[in-house]
């Protein structure tokens, strides 16, 4: 389907019309803390002047905690996955790229995660190309781009007075068709501006030499490098909880009387308790070992299992690490 255009003044009515097509519509709005992804109403003012959401998009499909089964004295029953149609606006291309990675982990011919899969099937992701990447962005070095459409259903380009939209998936094509009354054909000038913006954004993204990382890591298992990188690590989970590709989880049981619930909750390999065994022994008792795990998982094991490096270059871990451990420097050191 060729691209279509939407005048900015019609954005609200476009959102209002999608509200009739889905149970929930989410998008970027301003609150006290900045721009956040929130449920929209017909009155919501969308804000597109942000670099990225503080919280990664994985949380929309793989929430930090969710009940997966309920039990009592008679047995246990699996919780049915939530079933509601959702549209999400304003997702950055790095975050949609992360969804294409998580799909490989959670949706498989043999084993699929019903909770993730259901949400993924029921959700339409409208991504927004990045016009002004942040100083901590490095997506182009790691297989992404400010204009990448991977993992998205519809791609939107913000031209100021109007938007250009393009379908990426079949689901996206049907969505644009359903709302075609909202759109007009883009002018040649708009298409030209879109191209210029794309090129300008690409150039603006910082560079890191990352392509050899999986091969380099094979030789770094016992390296003293890990002591050096992990020296100032506090063992908190800011990097992993805010990482769009980190997907480790744990379970705990919430007991009430004779029954209770089994809950799945995000885990972080940087926590000192991450692989602590029942005996008290911990094969990754040192933070150097946990740092190695985090980097190896992203750049070596994922490369081996899925042929992808599980990093999208969003820079969240760089911005939010209390000790400013910079993954770009880690990549550079590994490859040195």
């Amino acid at each position, binding site marked *: 389907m060729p691209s279509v255009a939407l005048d900015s003044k019609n954005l609200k009515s476009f959102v209002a019309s999608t509200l009739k097509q889905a149970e929930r519509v989410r998008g970027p709005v301003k609150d006290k*803390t*900045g721009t956040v992804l929130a449920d929209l109403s017909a009155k919501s003012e969308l804000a597109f002047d*942000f*670099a*990225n959401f*503080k*919280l990664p998009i994985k949380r929309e499909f793989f929430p*930090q*905690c969710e009940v997966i089964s309920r039990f009592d004295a008679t047995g246990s029953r699996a919780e049915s996955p939530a079933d509601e149609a959702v549209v999400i606006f304003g997702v950055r291309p790095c975050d949609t790229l992360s969804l294409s990675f998580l799909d490989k982990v959670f949706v498989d011919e043999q084993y699929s995660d019903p909770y993730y899969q259901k949400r993924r099937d029921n959700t339409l992701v409208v991504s927004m190309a990045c016009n002004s990447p*942040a*100083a*901590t*962005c490095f997506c182009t070095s790691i297989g992404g781009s400010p204009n990448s459409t991977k993992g998205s259903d519809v791609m939107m380009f913000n031209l100021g007075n109007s938007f250009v939209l393009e379908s990426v998936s079949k689901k996206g094509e049907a969505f644009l068709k359903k709302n075609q009354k909202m759109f007009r054909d883009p002018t040649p000038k708009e298409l030209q501006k879109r191209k210029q913006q794309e090129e300008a954004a690409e150039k603006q993204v910082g560079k890191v030499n990352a392509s050899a990382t999986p091969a380099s890591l094979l030789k770094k298992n016992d390296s003293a490098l890990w002591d050096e990188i992990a*020296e*100032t690590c*506090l*063992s*908190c*989970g*800011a990097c992993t*909880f*805010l990482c769009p590709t980190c997907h480790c989880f*744990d379970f*705990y049981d*919430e007991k009430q009387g004779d029954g209770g619930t089994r*809950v799945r*909750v995000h*885990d*972080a390999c940087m*926590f*000192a*308790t991450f692989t602590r065994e029942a005996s008290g022994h911990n094969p990754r*008792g040192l933070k150097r070992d946990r740092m190695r795990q985090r980097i190896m998982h992203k750049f070596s094991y994922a490369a081996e299992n899925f042929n992808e490096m599980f990093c999208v270059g969003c*820079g*969240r871990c*760089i*911005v*939010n690490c*209390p*000790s*400013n*451990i*910079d993954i*770009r*420097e880690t990549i550079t050191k590994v490859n040195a």
Partner: protein
Amino acid sequence: MAREHKMQNTEKKLRETAKKLLADHTVDCVIGFKDGSRPKSSRPFFARNPQDVEKLVWNMYCAANLATFLPKLFEKPQRPNKDYKTPRIGIVVKGCDGRSVLGLVKEKQVPRENIVIIGMPCTGMVPASKNEKSSSEEIARACVECVSPTIKGIDIVIDGESRKPARADYARIKKFESKPAEERWKLFVEEISKCIRCNACREACPNCYCKVCFADQKKPAWVSPANVLSETVVFHLGRMFHQAGRCVECDACVNACPMGIDLRLFTQKLASDAKDLFGSVPGVTDDAVPALNTFMQDDSECFITDPEEK
């Protein structure tokens, strides 16, 4: 410009001091700051040999409290090791960090004879922005309200201009306390709801050195790792109450939090209570042990029986 020049001078003196300590093997390493990877930022750095000191910096972005690294460095090896020697550590401190270090000594987490405390002049720090698009210029509230930018009882003092101590009037806490309980609860819930349970506050806090945090215990599991309100509240209340009479109001927790939770509102309440009820300002008043580690007949008990009273 004048301020920058003075800071550079201070930085030079710091490097000379650290170099000497490392060169004559007084210490095995000096924990200080080096330039951060983002503009207008500094980050923790372990200088292990005399060449490393050239990386040490002192500027207005040295906000982190480096004392948080100390307790782990003095943990004994898990297996007996006859070659083990207790390390000797030099640590660069501001007033608040120094109060933390001396607090850790008092609580027997750090052997005083194995540390060299290098006190820096502090004019207030600018914490790194947690927004990828903006850098902050504002001096932290903790610094504006700091009652003790310089401290006694340290080993080496690097000269320079420091902030004037603020008067601890706890005006914000008094205002908070004057609100009805429902409103205070609403505010508490509003802030705490932002929490993603990443433990950055706990790990950045020098006082959070428990070998196994109550929040990590499994038998019994006092609190789950979920980011649901009941669990998050228990985690924060538990952590905060462990800080009563110990918190030096350095805001390491505030600066570490990726979600921008105003933890200071709550830690300061503890500090104001410690002062009002027990006459203790941790690290400033001359207490042999933290206020809640000791007992006196005339101690106030109203916080248990009638929290609305003073």
